[in-house]
């Protein structure tokens, strides 16, 4: 009730205008037997000071990465975040606006979204990008559905090296539309899909093939070969990519991708225990662009010929096409997309490449140091970027508990993927040599 300005006098004035004695009368049309006759069973209201205290107490029950050094990735990454981001997104004009339905007073959100679309199109090498999706996994699921609609086929080929949670999300979306899924196995020696060993699939039935680059194990796939294969059979090529890796790696556009998706958390967004982040979604080809899900901002002019921006291609969307819409998505992740855009802008052309380069160099250094430890080995031979898998006959979950006591968050044990004794490490530019060396020393003592 701290945010309700209505005074008793004002309330009475309003009741007088309405000609009623109490607010209760406004609810007379609700059947009496379902009206609540007691308070909801919730805690009593807290003052601002009490609220802050409660949140501090809850926060204290967590070990967060402002004091713990993390080597964990697997879809959420501890990158450096320029301070300027939080100051810009704290501006109420961005924070407290909604979807820019009235373009004339929403040019801030519209232009910044247009710039975001431009940046995503640029790093992915695609013609266009939309205004963002919920996250990388849902963006991929929507891309698969879009491929089915565009090709009028109902079989999707997924790599077994796709993030396991993304596999689950895609499966749930597709099975609800009776779309079949086939999986490409990975080579146990290289850790990536072998484009020459993809038999057993009737490729002319395939709507799309998906490649995650780098894959869940952090390894670089032979994406181009899979792209050529699917294009020979008239299907679409989808790449799920990490946006930081694109500073160094060949763009999906160069590799022939038709649709590109990914998760944008690593572009300046807080990990926030897994959300919110954003999914980006880019495509090439005018036919595909008109099938994209989600909001899209386009450039135009006003009545005086001045450049301006509007939501466009809206007839794809649910509020117009209802059950025939390309997707049910309504909101996007505007504020997270704004963060991603500010991040890329402030890093700039050179800074962006440096982040990628430092991730690669530091991950390599850390990997080599780990391999110096007796009993640890690298199970996969394909080149890696920021993440890699290490194998050792030890209980990684137990080791992680011990490391946490020392202020380190270890890698992700892969037991859940059928890889006992395997662990997935991630190293970003935020890690220092000293932190890595200390970790190695601690780990030696635990193995």
């Amino acid at each position, binding site marked *: 009730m701290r945010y309700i300005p209505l005074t008793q006098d004002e309330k009475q004035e309003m009741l007088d205008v309405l000609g009623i004695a109490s607010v209760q009368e406004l609810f007379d049309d609700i059947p009496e037997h379902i009206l609540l006759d007691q308070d909801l069973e919730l805690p009593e209201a807290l003052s601002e000071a009490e609220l802050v205290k409660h949140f501090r107490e809850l926060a204290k029950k967590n070990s967060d990465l402002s004091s713990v050094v993390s080597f964990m990735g697997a879809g959420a990454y501890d990158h450096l975040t320029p301070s300027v981001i939080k100051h810009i997104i704290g501006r109420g004009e961005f924070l407290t606006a909604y979807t820019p339905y009235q373009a004339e007073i929403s040019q801030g959100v519209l232009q910044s979204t247009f710039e975001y679309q431009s940046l995503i199109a640029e790093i992915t090498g695609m013609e266009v990008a939309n205004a963002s999706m919920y996250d990388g996994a849902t963006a991929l699921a929507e891309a698969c559905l879009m491929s089915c609609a565009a090709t009028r086929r109902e079989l999707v080929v997924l790599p077994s090296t796709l993030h396991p949670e993304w596999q689950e999300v895609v499966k749930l979306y597709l099975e609800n539309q009776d779309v079949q899924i086939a999986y490409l196995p990975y080579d146990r020696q290289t850790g990536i899909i072998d484009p020459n060993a993809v038999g057993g699939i009737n490729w002319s039935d395939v709507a799309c093939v998906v490649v995650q680059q780098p894959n869940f194990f952090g390894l670089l796939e032979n994406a181009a070969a899979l792209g050529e294969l699917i294009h020979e059979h008239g299907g679409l090529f989808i790449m799920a990519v990490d946006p930081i890796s694109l500073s160094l790696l060949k763009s999906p556009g160069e590799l022939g991708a038709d649709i590109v998706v990914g998760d944008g958390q690593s572009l300046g967004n807080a990990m926030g225990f897994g959300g919110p982040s954003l999914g980006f979604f880019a495509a090439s080809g005018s036919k595909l662009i*008109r099938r994209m899900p989600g909001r899209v901002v386009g450039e135009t002019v006003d009545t005086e010929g001045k450049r301006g921006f509007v939501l466009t291609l*809206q*007839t794809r969307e649910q509020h*117009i*096409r209802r059950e*025939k819409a390309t997707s049910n998505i309504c909101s996007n992740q505007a504020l997270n997309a704004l963060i991603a855009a500010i991040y890329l802008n402030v890093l700039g052309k050179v800074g962006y490449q440096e982040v990628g380069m430092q991730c690669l160099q530091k991950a390599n250094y850390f990997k080599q140091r780990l391999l110096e430890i007796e009993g640890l080995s690298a199970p996969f031979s394909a080149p890696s970027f920021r993440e890699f898998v290490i194998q050792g006959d030890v209980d990684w979950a137990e080791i992680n508990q011990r490391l946490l006591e020392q202020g380190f968050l270890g890698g992700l044990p892969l037991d859940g993927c059928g890889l006992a004794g395997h662990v997935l490490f991630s190293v970003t530019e935020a890690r220092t040599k000293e932190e890595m060396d200390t970790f190695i020393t601690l780990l030696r003592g635990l193995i």
Partner: protein
Amino acid sequence: MSEKILYTKEHEWVVVKDNIVRVGISDYAQNELGDVVFVDLPELGDVVEEGEGFAVVESVKAVSDIYAPVSGEIVTINEELEDSPELINESPLDRGWLVEIKVDGVAQTGDLMNQQEYEAFLKGV
């Protein structure tokens, strides 16, 4: 065009020449839609059934399915619409035509309206 123009209740027009039926949308329909911004036409060779939605005409904030007035095969599409969808607004009965459908035998147009009947029909809309 000298051939007689006929209308459907869905506000499409047809002009029949032998076994070729040219299809478009009426002036009333384009006016209701507003500025047309995109036209999704079928592929050449597609076979359509009478009453089936075979094309989509879009304005900024509305979408209209176009239903086949006859059954047959799509033999020509108006490729000009791809770059200039506004032709539907500017010239709905002429340059804004959509497709030509080839029918088997003689086109069944018995239940379509002529110009006069259509105008009367519009008054009741």
